[in-house]
């Protein structure tokens, strides 16, 4: 009897084990190759800095990916938010105002992504492509308007840039995300929608309403992420945020998130994945790997992790 329980537990939790395993493997390999430099105080600090924004974004993204959807517009959104935050803070002298402005904007985008796709009967990925184009254009226009290559913030953001602040932010968002995911309807419904949207609807769940909530929470995470991104670099330009949508997807996959969502999705994927992603880059540089090999290795790792953590029956593609 115990044997059967053991096998079942393993099957259900194998995804978890494998994704933690990937992180542990990276840690071990790079600790050795970098001769311990991976663990220097300085390095741990920069790892947290690099992972902070990705982790916050990924935690919000879990709700979207659980439903089997994707959001392409994250990068463009975050770029515009950073620029706007800087511009508004410089103009008004108040960081709070800057943050509230981008928070409001991100909520609107969440609504658009959630509602408009349902209204128009389009898959959410289409509305996010549309938003991506709009925001990309806005970003370019904003930079042309200020007529420089980048804008720098004049507010002193050194507190937000500190490791303490970033750790606190990660922890707070994590607590909220886990709370929402495991203990409220939002998490349960998003997973159910990803597993079988029709059956969920036929259980009396208002799918549209909860989709919108998921996108709204994600929007909040984007705004917070933009805040910390601005704090880190103090400037933003025409290319800020490019590619983040892909980075988040890679991070989630490295953390073991199934692309088609469903019941095997976890918040832990986002944290594990964000750190694995960052450690991969960091570790390769510390180990002195030649830059031409870096791409190949990253691609191999990515492929291997997908093969290991993806279930074929789920189907790999999101909707």
């Amino acid at each position, binding site marked *: 009897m115990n044997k*059967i*329980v053991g096998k*079942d537990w393993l099957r*259900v939790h194998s995804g978890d084990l494998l994704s933690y395993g990937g992180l542990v493997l990276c840690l071990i390999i790079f600790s050795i190759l970098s001769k311990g430099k991976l663990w220097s105080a300085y390095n741990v600090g920069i790892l947290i800095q690099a992972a902070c924004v990705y982790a916050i974004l990924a935690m919000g993204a879990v709700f979207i990916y659980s439903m089997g959807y994707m959001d392409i517009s994250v990068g463009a959104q975050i770029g515009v938010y950073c620029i706007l935050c800087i511009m508004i803070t410089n103009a008004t002298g108040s960081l709070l105002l800057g943050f509230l402005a981008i928070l409001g904007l991100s909520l609107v985008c969440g609504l658009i992504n959630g509602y408009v796709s349902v209204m128009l009967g389009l898959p959410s990925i289409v509305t996010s492509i549309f938003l991506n184009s709009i925001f990309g254009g806005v970003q370019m226009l904003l930079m042309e308007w200020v007529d420089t290559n980048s804008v720098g913030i004049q507010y002193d953001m050194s507190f937000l840039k500190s490791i303490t602040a970033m750790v606190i932010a990660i922890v707070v968002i994590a607590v909220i995300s886990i*709370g929402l995911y*495991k*203990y*409220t*309807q939002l998490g*349960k*419904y998003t*997973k*159910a929608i990803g*597993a*079988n949207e*029709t*059956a*969920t*609807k*036929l*259980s*009396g*769940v*208002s799918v549209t309403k909860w989709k919108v909530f998921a996108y709204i929470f994600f929007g909040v995470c984007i705004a917070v992420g933009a805040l910390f991104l601005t704090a880190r670099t103090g400037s933003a330009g025409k290319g800020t945020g490019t590619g983040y949508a892909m980075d988040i997807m890679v991070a989630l996959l490295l953390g073991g998130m199934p692309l088609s969502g*469903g*019941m*095997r999705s976890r918040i832990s994927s986002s944290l594990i994945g964000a750190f694995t992603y960052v450690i991969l880059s960091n570790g390769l540089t510390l180990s002195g790997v030649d830059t031409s090999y870096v791409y190949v290795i990253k691609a191999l790792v990515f492929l291997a992790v997908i093969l290991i953590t993806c279930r074929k*029956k*789920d189907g790999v593609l999101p909707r």
Partner: protein
Amino acid sequence: MKEILLEIKKMNKKFGPIVALKDVDLEIRRGQIHGLIGENGSGKSTITSIAAGMQQATSGEMFYLGEPWKPSSMVEAQAKGVSMILQEANTIPNCTVAENLFAGQEDHFSTLGFVNSRKMNRAADELLSRFELTHMKGRDSINTYGFEDRKLVELARAVTDETQILVVDETTTALSFEGRKILYRLMDRLAAEDKAVIFISHDLDEILEHCTILTVLRDGEIRGVIQKEEMQKEGSVSRIRQLMVGRDIGDQFYRSDYDGSHGSGVALEYRNVSNEKIKDFSLKLHEGEIVGIGGLSGCGMHEIGRMAFGLEHLDHGHVLCRGKEVLNATDAVRQGIGYISKNRDQEALILEGAISTNIVMPSLPDLRKAGFVSPAGERKLAKEQIDLLAIKCENGSQWVNTLSGGNKQKVSFAKWMAKGSDIIIMDCPTRGVDIGVKQAMYQLIYEMKKAGKAILMISEEMAELIGMADRLIIMKDFEIAKEFPRSEGLSETDIIEYMI
């Protein structure tokens, strides 16, 4: 007794450690319509698939027309006279009917490597008319025909002049009344021509009516062989059921009472409802009442069920739950309506999800305390239902796709029991469910009625509706044809004439 066409001796089939067939002996004689009956997993399909060349036995012998028989493929078996038609779709899409009928035999119609389509189409038309399928033409694309017609094309393809034994494996579930009649006539004709038919079906009544001899299987072994005279005796049905299930399930399968009374309150009402398909449908469902809706598939009964759950758009009329309009699925659930869809795996259940997740899904808003849902509360609610309905599983976190058909259906029921819905609309509630579990479900449904719940039972199984409904409504062409109150003398023949 007539000559033996096919003899199977001590056949065994193992799939790894699983024993599918154990020392099975079977005789198929000329002129027989030989029924094979048993629950899911009893081995009936396994035997015939081995005989028709789809797989090989682990041990045992077969003799066909006196010679040792071990076909290596279905094509070989069919060429030698043993053909089989299945439950799943087996026609080639995007080809014409003629191309399907003569797939693999194109050289009969070709000269110098070119296929003479006109010749093939003419031959196809001739073949189709022999099978009474005159509404189809050889040159038509098979895509234009629905599932049933395609099945019939398969039939025409399978039965050639060389055919000695035709295996019909659960095919009748896919066919409408008309289609079944065509099949029965074909079976009778084959029997009259001294050929044989092996007929596999879940429907006991159908088997009893059309077979000349019946073999019952359970757990891979032969449990009984029943001759025609025995079949016509009293109580044959329950005896056969007993052989199938392995225990005495008693006389009571459906309800034992004939009391069609119910509460006075109207739980659910359709008031002059119509849309592009349904024409002016009205119905009042009372508390403590079981209303059955039956008819040919395509008569509109499935849409009626969906309407009550707010899933279909209404052009005119209203669906009212205790006087309040039902707007959509969320609204319906909130008002206490539950819906068990006939597409169990796609619509009613999240297969890749835990049993408890499925069970508590409609109840989550009720489990909320200050916005949060306690996992312990979920587990408790799920466990209650698992115990109540005796769902066979390790625990609530097992995934639904590991359950058998009957247990899956129990989970569908459990959803609404947990929610406490007092109006349940169930569409084909016992489809694909084993007899033992069926009986338990009928009991459950009866208890629900006694507890004052209102039940709308939509089903394609006549026996089930006659056995369970307080009122039986027959639909035809998207409107109500006739209503029958519950009575002891009600039989299928009374009803059938209103269905067609």
